């Protein structure tokens, strides 16, 4: 588990997810919301990749596009050897059991008219040929795994608390023995004391079942706890992708640095003495991102080049990738570094 030499289970390559904007009387296509704009990364088997960023940065869209809940505009998403961005509907359906999702709002993602056992059992009905008795056994097994009492099998979602509902959502995601699970803000709607319960459950399940997670969250301290590597997203692009300890000890990208300095620490002395990097202004609209670096409108370290040229995500230290001109003395040209990480390094390309 969490072994650096493990093979890549998920490979995302140049993924773009644009939502078209239509305007005028004729509803002409007048532009795109670039929710995810040319993103590439890999996730090793058994690893947890944390994905952080502010609301509207495209992290949820990325998670959904990766499972093809949206049809991506461009790019490849290879999960367990198959490019799911291009699979036919029938092949995609067969692929679905490998990849599952846990949603943010357990209230909205569970059908209020279905009992717990029919919610957890539905994927089994759809994708397996189990008999009714076998299915019931599997449902009980799943309920045990996520810590739900078997007596609750015939209850309905409204009879459960938020934390228990999230356990139901996790049991449903586990029903088909997936390899890869996208957790889209699974704890954001829960109280602090319940958050820890759910996070511990996710970690236990990972150890037991060898799961691979994409953990999407805006809670940087929880991501530090659960993730092995962390990707920081800003306005549709990944600005930094680093191993967890490196990122939290010394963030490289100015946005990652500001984001970390904005976290409220439960320590009054540190809160009094530390200096925050206060970002000015708000997130620009993804329909009309800045011409140069997406962060150039708010960056405290902005300089000329940032205004005209989008920085590529390149490796600046072993295992650490940053998309920032401060760390790129030479303009990268494809193939200049050679070796094994070329393709990955220039994923975001330089668009002028």
């Amino acid at each position, binding site marked *: 588990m969490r072994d650096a030499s493990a093979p890549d289970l998920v490979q995302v390559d140049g993924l773009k997810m644009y939502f078209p904007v239509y305007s005028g009387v004729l509803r002409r296509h007048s532009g795109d919301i670039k929710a995810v704009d040319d993103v590439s990364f890999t996730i090793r088997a058994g690893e947890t990749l944390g994905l952080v960023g*502010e*609301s509207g940065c495209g992290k949820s869209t990325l998670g959904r596009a990766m499972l093809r809940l949206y049809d991506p505009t461009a790019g490849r998403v290879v999960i367990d050897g198959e490019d799911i961005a291009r699979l036919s509907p029938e092949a995609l359906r067969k692929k679905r059991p490998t990849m599952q999702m846990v949603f943010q709002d357990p209230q909205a993602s569970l059908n209020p008219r279905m009992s717990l056992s029919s919610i957890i059992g539905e994927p089994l009905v759809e994708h397996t040929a189990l008999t009714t008795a076998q299915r019931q056994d599997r449902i009980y097994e799943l309920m045990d795994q996520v810590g739900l009492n078997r007596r609750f099998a015939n209850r309905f979602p409204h009879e459960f*608390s938020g*934390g228990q509902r999230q356990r139901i959502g996790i049991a449903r995601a586990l029903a088909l023995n997936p390899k890869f699970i996208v957790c889209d803000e699974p704890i954001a709607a829960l*109280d*602090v*004391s*319940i*958050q*820890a*319960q759910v*996070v*511990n459950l996710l*970690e236990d399940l990972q150890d037991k079942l060898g799961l691979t997670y994409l953990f999407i969250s*805006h809670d*940087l*301290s*929880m991501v*530090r*706890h659960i993730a092995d590597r962390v990707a920081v997203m800003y306005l549709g692009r990944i600005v930094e992708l680093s191993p967890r*300890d490196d990122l*939290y000890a010394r963030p490289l990208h100015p946005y990652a640095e*500001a*984001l*970390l*300095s*904005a*976290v*409220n*620490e*439960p*320590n*009054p*002395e*540190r*809160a009094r003495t530390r200096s*925050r990097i*206060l*970002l000015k202004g*708000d*997130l620009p609209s993804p329909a009309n991102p800045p011409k140069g670096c997406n962060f150039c409108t708010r960056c405290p370290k902005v300089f000329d080049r940032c205004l005209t040229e989008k920085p590529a995500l390149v490796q600046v230290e072993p295992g650490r990738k940053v998309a920032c001109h401060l760390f790129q003395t030479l303009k990268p040209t494809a193939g200049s570094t050679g070796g094994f990480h070329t393709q990955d390094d220039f994923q975001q390309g330089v668009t002028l």
Partner: protein
Amino acid sequence: MADEAAPVLDVRGLTTVFHTRQGEIHAVNAVSFALKRGEVLGVVGESGSGKSVTMMSLVGLLPTPPAEVRAGQVMLGTRDLLQMSAKDLSDVRGAKVGFVFQDPMTSLNPVFTVENQICEPLTRHMGLSKAQARARSVELLELVGIPDAAKRVKYYPHQFSGGMRQRVMIAIALACEPDLLIADEPTTALDVTIQAQIIELMKDLQKKLGMAIIWITHDMGVIAGIADRVMVMYGGQVVEHAPVDQIFHSPQHPYTRALLRTIPTITGKREARLSVIEGQPPIMAQAPKACPFGARCAHHFARCDAENPQRRPLDCLPLGQGHDVACHWSAEVGYA
């Protein structure tokens, strides 16, 4: 100017129940606290712990029925808010007590301009003319750091971003220079970088204007950054109350301790496993006869079921000024 040491707000034994078809829910149970000028009281607790209901009871913002403020005394200066007529109370709200709520989109009126909404308390409470109020509203927007205020004052709420809307809410709350500002999870709906902006702004404004602030949140990190004193609520009652440093350094109630341990941090040692508080928060279906935290407490013993613990000062200061805790175990054994 009032006596500096006299409290702006003094709440004693506040008890609020809700009448529902399933019977009474005891949402707030004998809550007492006081606040001096220029002080920030942080109120923490999980959802359902009664922190918002407490603050709404103070100024009659709860619909009655189903709510009923059953007992207590809420002294704002020399007047008891609970004894006031509805009309008098509406003179207090907005003028003496300002509010900032969690979600600025739902608390601003979408069909009026921001100017309109800032002018309302100014003409209603301060007796300003329309022209004076308009001039003042631009000043207020500048005060809360909205650039280009003279132009933006004509905007509608949807034309602002979330952080800017919250600044507008703060401007409205501060319009009449209230003695007390109640901020109910003002940063919860905002992103971290915007959260940081709003917190810095509030600190700054407080230094300038010197009002007392009650800051309700479930985020211990926010509390550490802004509060002078902290009140921890659980199951509708105050379980611990102390100056901010003591809450973080020597928490005495098992709930406070557990709460602090469940939060991961971004600096310091990374725990291999998060510690959890097992179980669920209680639903207060009856007046508490036992400790509300008993069922989830690691130090639970017989007395906890027999008797609801009272707040007990841990230092020689009067209750509500120093460090106090409501726990039988801490009274009999305590943390070393």
